[in-house]
């Protein structure tokens, strides 16, 4: 891990060999409850068996990512777009896409030209 000062030299010194030998899943700090919470956020209904499988797998991947987590990159800007563009826009001119029927015909359930869903419990956030 970096020696704290975050310099390029420290970063370089901290780097480990690429693709270090991998000896299978290890338990990391990620808990089964955390995995269950994340599944709820992602709206996935994981079975007990899946939770048992996913927890160590995700922990292993996160453990592998620990080197990135540990880097001191306070002064490094983030790259969200590899090719820097700005102010990309289009003129405010309407156009009919003409896809309404094709989409509604394929909807899992439609009624009165709208998408029909089971009762929605709770308001939007």
């Amino acid at each position, binding site marked *: 891990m970096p020696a704290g000062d975050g310099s390029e030299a420290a970063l370089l010194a901290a780097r480990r060999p690429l693709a270090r030998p991998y000896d299978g899943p290890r338990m990391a700090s990620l808990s089964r409850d955390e995995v269950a919470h994340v599944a709820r956020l992602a709206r996935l209904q994981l079975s007990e068996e899946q939770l048992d499988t996913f927890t160590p797998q995700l922990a292993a*991947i996160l453990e592998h990512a620990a*080197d*990135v987590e540990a*880097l001191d990159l306070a002064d*490094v800007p983030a790259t969200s777009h590899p090719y820097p563009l700005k102010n990309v826009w*289009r003129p405010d001119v309407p156009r009919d896409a003409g896809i309404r029927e094709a989409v509604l015909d394929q909807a899992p359930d439609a009624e009165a030209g709208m998408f029909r869903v*089971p*009762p929605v419990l709770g308001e939007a956030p």
Partner: protein
Amino acid sequence: MSPVDTARSTAAAVRAGERSARSVVEAHLGAIGERDGELHAFNLVTADAALAHADEIDAQVAAGHDPGPLAGVPIAVKDNLCTAGVPTTCSSKILDGWRPPYDATVVQRLRAAGAVSVGKTNLDEFAMGSSTENSAFGPTRNPHDTSRVPGGSSGGSAAAVAAGFAPLALGSDTGGSIRQPAAFCGIVGAKPTYGAVSRYGLVAFASSLDQIGPFATDVADAALLLEVISGHDPLDSTSIPKPPLSLSSTLQQGVEGLRVGVVKELLDAEGIHPDVASRTRAALEALEGAGAKIEEVSVPAVIYGLSAYYLIAPAEASSNLARYDGVRYGLRVDAPTTGEMYDRTRTAGFGAEVERRIMLGTYALSAGYYDAYYGKAQKVRTLIIRDFEAAYERCDVLLSPTAPTTAFELGAKADPLAMYLNDVCTIPSNLAGHPAISVPFGSGDDGLPVGVQIMAPAMGEATMFRVAAALEGARA
């Protein structure tokens, strides 16, 4: 392998009226019919539509019109590219049977160039994988050895070209999904500069990394296909506002005087099979023999590439794949409430690898972890770009293996992280947004193809293809 005419020679013959597009398409449909039962390169073969389109091309030629640079050339399209009225599944149960009401920009451009789509190719579900085993519709097999995977995620497209089902195919590459299967199948595959090809109509996996690119049997065909699909598209905000790439005209200029660097971190790393490393060194020598100047360079930050990638790509995927909720299209599993309908639909619709990545990405973005994971991974991208830029001050292109090994056996990589390690050499170009191409360069002791990767700075495709062509010429 069945002998295949190049796309160039086929298009030339069709444009000249020497060969009918129908006969070309029929021959390829025949090859598909003979062998795709075994390989499963295609999720869907659109034979009738292809023949009808071929007839249109022939009618154009007969009427004295030029159907375009890919006149009558069959092409296989990865099944995560939207095709109007033709099912687009992403090899996922959640989109099984969905017919997009629109064409991807690349699909429109293919049609405008006279190419004939023969079908939609298999992939790892939502392009998440390196073997095409994660398809809801069963794996694709490597035409060189059907006990082996074709690579992935664009394994169907790579296998289709390698098997002679079509001279050209489109794939998408988020972390190596064109280049690695090209290497495994012994063909050419390129990932363009991020933004060089429109993503409009590509079903998103990781938006800031995804690019569409060509597969072909040789470098010149890949260049031709990339010329056709590249160029600015106002429908994609990240599309680079430049005209289509011009590659073919400079393809044969050779490498005399070009500076080629081999990336130390990607060649000497543990995990790179000795056969692959030795083929990469042989490629370097071949280029030197052709007049290039060779040196070893360091791109230190690439060692963080895999970790950064497996934070960024799943994070973006978790958001991109949220829309598969059973409300508007695709699969719905009924339930008494909308909330339960979401849970049941998504759980039934997604395979394990997709679920795993959604989970990983959701976690990486969730409260309290953004800065440590996604935020930091985006900064690692900056480091990688800086290190590449430094390397490109000394070199025109960089060289590395495409994949650490040759094609592995189906089922060999059951552990997800072991599978992810396949992408170590290809991921850095995606993170940097730079172009990279895999060129076949001999085979390993197992007799399976080895690919060598050539990387270039952003919009450096012309030089990259020149080097690729030189390497291809030195192969024999």
